[in-house]
């Protein structure tokens, strides 16, 4: 299941043992003096940032701030080199065939919108179908809904089982009539933590003549992802969930597909030649990078990739899995608590749950009083919550800096919430 696709491309596991305390010491937010220590259990929403990322961004602004790709002077060349160097690092990190397949976007949402707008509007027509799943984040639903209503395209959905996994027995039927031209699936669910078997889904999608899109927002930050081994055609992820800054995301696409796609946004930088009534497009990937890009954020993302590689993605994922196993064991001690999703050995570092009749907002507020930060709500996955017949859940999510004693603090707070709201 999961272990089929993370391919480390021969990268050896780091020799030193993984020490979350030492990792934590490199994150300034945890060094900040405060009345209660920060227990940050919301990394699935956004991750904290290590010194290395903040320093890299600061260095760009203070030492070589200049626009990229145009200036002939030295700092402009330094900025261009740093920007394109980050692209190469990202390409290596996800095992892309070439840095030209790495397009910088604002976030995963923009990356998915790029595919819907550029690939979708040039390739899909009325009567075609798009296959999605019930566990998608809104960012992998709404762009396709917009396209579907504009073009008269049918949306089809792989259902989610009671146990929080995709009901893949339905997939052959969804693909059978050959009308499905695109399949888009989340790699790791941001609510259930479920790790979906992308290579198998991609195999079926390709056999039916559909392209495969993967929302990897929760997987690229947490485990080794090899975009080629996944069998995907497009993969979207975002920088701020992987120790990098906000405002920078990535669309990886197969070069053969990207080459023939029309641009997404028009403007400077994405053109080769502009005449008053028409233009020729720039080469990949710049064809898709219109206007001045967030240069500092790209530099920061490159530093985040370096930092994650220094920890080793196998170690990062093992740590997530140990934490989620521990969390699920401890959460079982809390009466009337129900966990959504599969067992610990089939999920990433995310646990969403309900606690008796208590609204998740109230749970989160009581926890906040102890400095414990969790997310409460529908986590941008309303259809998934509807599937389980609940309006909202509370969610704890983990990362390389999370400690087991933070899960103890969570459990203690949940017992307290039960007392406060006892009826």
């Amino acid at each position, binding site marked *: 299941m999961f272990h089929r696709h993370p391919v480390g491309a021969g990268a050896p596991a780091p020799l030193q043992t993984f020490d979350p305390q030492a990792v934590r010491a490199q994150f300034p937010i945890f060094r900040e003096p405060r009345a209660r220590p920060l227990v940050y259990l919301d990394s699935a929403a956004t991750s904290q940032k290590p010194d290395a990322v903040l320093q890299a961004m600061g260095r760009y602004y203070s030492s070589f701030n200049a626009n990229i790709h145009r200036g002939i002077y030295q700092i402009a060349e330094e900025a261009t080199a740093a920007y394109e160097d980050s692209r190469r690092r990202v390409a290596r990190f996800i095992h892309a065939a070439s840095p030209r397949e790495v397009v910088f976007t604002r976030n995963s949402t923009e990356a998915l919108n790029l595919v819907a707008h550029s690939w979708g509007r040039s390739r899909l027509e009325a009567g075609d179908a798009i296959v999605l799943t019930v566990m998608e984040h809104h960012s992998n639903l709404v762009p396709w809904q917009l396209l579907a209503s504009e073009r008269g395209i049918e949306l089809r959905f792989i259902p989610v089982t009671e146990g929080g996994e995709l009901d893949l027995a339905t997939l052959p039927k969804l693909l059978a009539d050959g009308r499905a031209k695109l399949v888009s699936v989340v790699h790791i669910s941001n609510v259930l933590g479920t790790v979906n078997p992308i290579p198998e889904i991609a195999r079926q999608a390709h056999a039916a003549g559909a392209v495969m899109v993967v929302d990897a927002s929760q997987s690229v930050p947490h485990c080794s992802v090899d975009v080629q081994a996944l069998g995907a055609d497009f993969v979207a992820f975002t920088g701020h969930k992987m120790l990098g800054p906000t405002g920078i995301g990535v669309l990886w696409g197969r070069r053969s597909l990207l080459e023939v796609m029309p641009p997404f946004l028009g403007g400077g930088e994405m053109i080769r030649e502009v005449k008053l009534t028409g233009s020729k497009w720039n080469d990949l990937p710049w064809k898709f990078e219109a206007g001045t890009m967030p240069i500092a954020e790209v530099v920061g993302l490159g530093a985040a990739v370096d930092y994650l590689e220094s920890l080793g993605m196998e170690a990062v994922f093992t740590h997530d899995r140990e934490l989620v196993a521990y969390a699920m064991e401890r959460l079982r001690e809390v009466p009337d608590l129900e966990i959504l999703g599969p067992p610990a050995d089939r999920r990433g570092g995310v646990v969403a749950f309900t606690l008796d009749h208590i*609204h*998740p*907002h*109230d749970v989160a*507020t*009581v926890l*906040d*009083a102890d400095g414990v930060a969790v997310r*409460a*709500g*529908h986590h941008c996955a*309303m259809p998934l*919550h509807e599937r389980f017949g609940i*309006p*909202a859940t509370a969610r704890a999510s983990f990362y390389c800096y999370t400690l087991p004693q933070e899960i103890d603090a969570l459990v203690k707070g949940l017992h307290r919430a039960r007392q*406060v*709201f006892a*009826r």
Partner: protein
Amino acid sequence: MSGFEDLYRENILDHYRNPRNQGTLESPDITYEDANPLCGDLIRMDFKLKDGTIEQVCFSGHGCAISQASASMLCELVEGMPLEEAKKIGREDVLEMLGIELGPVRLKCALLALKTLKAGVYGIQQWPGEEEESTR
């Protein structure tokens, strides 16, 4: 950030545990439902009117303690109140009733019932929507 004891004062927990006017009315004169898309809180209010006065009011739905308590308090406040007077209730009145400091996210929870009430008594077409558009 305040402790939860400040946020869940006894009066709020009391309304949350023993909501007043909870339920629905049969053939109400006005019924209105609104939701907070961020957290999935949902409140419906039913009104029975007599001679320009709110003779009976009920709320139903689901949500956090703050949203449910403020709906309960508002129902208690407006029952028997002339419609014109109910239109004048503002966010400050609700916050005063709750008696707590709220951050921007929980403020939405606290004011959902007021939004439902105002849209209901004004009729959504005429409602000026000042709670949503306040810059304060």
